[in-house]
């Protein structure tokens, strides 16, 4: 099923005739159109050089045009390729030519046959780079939608896996695929996604992140509401949970929703490890995130307002490390936090080989030298470095960015109002998290609304046999995923 959602009203070239279309396309230098005369038939073959696979043309198309066939039907009958479309519609002819089809017209017919010969140059399936795991599958999505669909479908060889395709973008005509498993996924979720994507009125969709930013429930929230993943195995797994997956042609990342806050801290590798170890790693990640958000603000608050809270044995350490530093704690903290952010940003922008020097510059020059110069205290340096490290433990990159961002308002509030300020801004954060939804489902589930069953796979991951039901969050049609043994029914 195809849904065309582009702007028919604004279609400028309402071509009336095939020849008009072809003439119009002749303006592009990479458009080729030639005629072949056989006996009294004149074929006109047209295509974009750059879009088609010439092997297909030379091997599977041109040799068969010599055979004697007087109509297009006869010609088609002789061609050894699939994906042939007859059309009488000049608009379709044009759009298909632009998708990498070869058009063959016969001089006396008002029909054209379109032969699929798109050039499928894409990257090989490679190792996942963003979500690398030591154990488990090592395939990552690539830029080609067909390859990506293949990677998912080979993991779910069932008829129920439904793929809906929507073309989005007036200029880019990007193919967006929405995947779900019929009978498991909640129709409401699927329809919501399809409706939101169909309603998009944009020129270009370059990447899946465009889609995720445009169809999120709360577009002003710094928190991502769709998980962005490059692992086909993760996509296949969440499809089995009843979630909806969005793939975009040209994007090596897929989106999945609805998602909860806690899922962003679950690495997919957690499912490949024993549940005790996986739970431990998850708890460490949550601790790291809390540490990352709160540590520097607490340092600033305590040193600025609440000296009473410092344990008596720690006072001397803190005072000595701060002695001779001319800045108040807030400035000191801001300087270091900004330094870390600069390092990260510089590291991300530089080519890999140059990027290595950033580590050295950051570690030695900024770290050691600023302490020696008496600009920052070494206690704070440790805290800031640890909290930066903590924010990098988040498996989903977008969430890591969010965590780094929300540190700064907390830091300022800690400076203005001390621990009270931290408490206030933490409440703001909590209220915000309670309010946002992902595809209409609560984001902070299973914490709120409290759903005990879903806690089996949130902060910790219990063994598979204890997760017999699919997450309540998704409101699946079929809730049971672990079927009881036959004999246990008796």
């Amino acid at each position, binding site marked *: 099923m195809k849904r065309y959602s582009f702007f028919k009203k604004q279609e400028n070239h309402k071509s009336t005739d095939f020849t008009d279309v072809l003439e119009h396309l002749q303006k592009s230098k990479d458009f080729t159109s030639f005629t072949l005369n056989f006996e009294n038939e004149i074929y006109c073959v047209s295509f974009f050089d750059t879009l088609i696979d010439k092997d297909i043309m030379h091997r599977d198309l041109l040799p068969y045009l010599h055979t004697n066939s007087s109509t297009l039907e006869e010609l088609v009958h002789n061609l050894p390729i699939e994906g042939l479309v007859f059309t009488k519609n000049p608009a379709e002819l044009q759009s298909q030519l632009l998708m990498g089809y070869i058009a063959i017209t016969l001089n006396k017919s008002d029909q054209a046959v379109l032969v699929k010969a798109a050039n499928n140059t894409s990257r090989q399936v490679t190792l996942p780079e963003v979500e690398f795991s030591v154990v488990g599958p090592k395939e990552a999505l690539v830029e080609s939608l067909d390859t990506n669909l293949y990677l998912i479908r080979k993991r779910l060889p069932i008829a129920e896996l439904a793929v809906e395709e929507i073309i989005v973008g007036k200029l880019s005509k990007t193919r967006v695929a929405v995947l779900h498993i019929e009978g498991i996924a909640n129709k409401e979720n699927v329809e919501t996604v399809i409706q939101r994507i169909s309603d998009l009125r944009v020129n270009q969709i370059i990447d899946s992140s465009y889609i995720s930013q445009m169809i999120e429930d709360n577009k*002003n929230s710094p928190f991502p509401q769709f998980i962005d993943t490059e692992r086909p195995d993760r996509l296949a797994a969440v499809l089995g949970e009843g979630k909806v997956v969005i793939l975009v042609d040209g994007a090596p990342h897929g989106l999945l929703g609805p998602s909860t806050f806690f899922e962003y801290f679950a690495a997919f590798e957690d499912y490949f490890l024993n549940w005790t170890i996986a739970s431990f790693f998850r708890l460490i990640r949550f601790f790291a995130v809390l540490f990352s958000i709160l540590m520097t603000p607490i340092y600033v608050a*305590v*040193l*600025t*307002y609440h*000296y*009473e809270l*410092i344990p*008596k*044995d720690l*006072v*001397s350490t*803190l*005072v*000595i490390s*701060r*002695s*001779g*530093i001319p800045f*108040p*704690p807030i400035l000191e903290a801001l300087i270091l936090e900004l330094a870390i952010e600069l390092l990260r940003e510089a590291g991300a922008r530089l080519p890999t080989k140059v990027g290595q020097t950033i580590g050295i510059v950051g570690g030695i020059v900024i770290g050691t030298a600023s302490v020696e110069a008496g600009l920052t205290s070494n206690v704070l340096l440790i805290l800031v470095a640890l909290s930066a490290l903590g924010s990098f433990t988040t498996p989903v990159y977008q969430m890591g960015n969010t965590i780094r961002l929300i540190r700064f308002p907390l830091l300022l*509030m800690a400076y*203005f*109002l*001390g621990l*009270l*300020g931290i408490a206030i801004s933490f409440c703001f954060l909590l209220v915000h998290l309670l309010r946002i939804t992902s595809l209409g489902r609560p984001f902070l589930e299973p914490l709120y609304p409290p759903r005990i069953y879903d806690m089996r796979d949130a902060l910790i991951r219990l063994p598979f046999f204890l997760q017999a039901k699919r997450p309540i969050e998704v409101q699946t049609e079929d809730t049971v995923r672990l079927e009881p043994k036959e004999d246990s029914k008796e």
Partner: protein
Amino acid sequence: MRILFAKLALILLLISVLSGCMGVESKVLDEINLATAIGYDYVDKTHFEAIAVTPLYYPDKTIKNITFSSKSSLSKDVRDEMNQQSERPIFSGKLEVVLYEKRLAKQGIFYLIDTLIRDPSIGTTLKLGIVEGSSKGVLSPQFGNIDKGIYLSNTIEQNIKMGMLPKTNLHLFLYAHYSEGMDPFLPIVKALDGKVYIKGNAMFNSKGEYVYQTKSRENVIFKMLYENTTSKEGFSTKIEGREFASVNNIKTKRSYKISKPMTDTPITIDLEIKALLREYTGDEVTPKMIKIIEDKMSKDVKERSENLVRNFQKLHVDPLGIGEQVRTRTRSWDKKKWDEIYTSIPINVNAKVEILESGVVE
């Protein structure tokens, strides 16, 4: 969107502007002087001298104490006068120890403790102490590379955990003072060339006046009678002639038997003591000998305990909280009546010493 940004901008503006009006004053840790110990010395009947110790931390990790002193009749005045001497404001939020001179304690120290209770930045785990000699002598000498207040607090804490001091702090002092049928006590410290020396416990009467100091042999007994303990501290008993036995690693359990509360029927305190034999100057320790040591010790503890309790009764102080024990067992509690009968109630102590280990000798 515009409304959202307007809201955000308003909130930010309000926070940054109004935080000035909320009276939150910043006290940056390295821009203030933290008083860690305060001592009060007797000057005359109405005046006292206060000494505050604040640590100065140097970048080369040495710590030096500076002391401020001032004479007054009100703690508040003292603080002002000290601030006039200091380059940085003095704050008392990290106060660890407050000491009172014995002569001052004799007059009652409650009017001085009042300022500690009123200040919300002072915690109730603060340690109080009585000084023999002057508190200036205890607080002013520099001791090693450690802040004097922290040193004092650690010393007292260590002796509570492992030694002969019963648990004591501001909270417990106040509890004992305000509860009916219990009187407070505090540790007594003495200066000993730069260090301090914990001498014993000072007992206060119900008016908060210092009345009695335990002798060194009474300290362990007092701790055992006051609470269930586990301490490293031990005691020794004369067995026969020149033979002595001493035990330590004591675990005690104390229970009250009050058959008829609020009458002058005898009150019995049962002490169960489990200890390790650490020293014995006699010959071989046989099971038979252990039995003898246990019996002798039980008798000794009983005697010493009963003496101590009798002493308390004579002075009309009740640091053990016997009145408190009676109060929990009766409905007809009457403080006045209790005060009348307290001195005359016979209080017996039953001690049972059990030696669990006699050590490794061979």
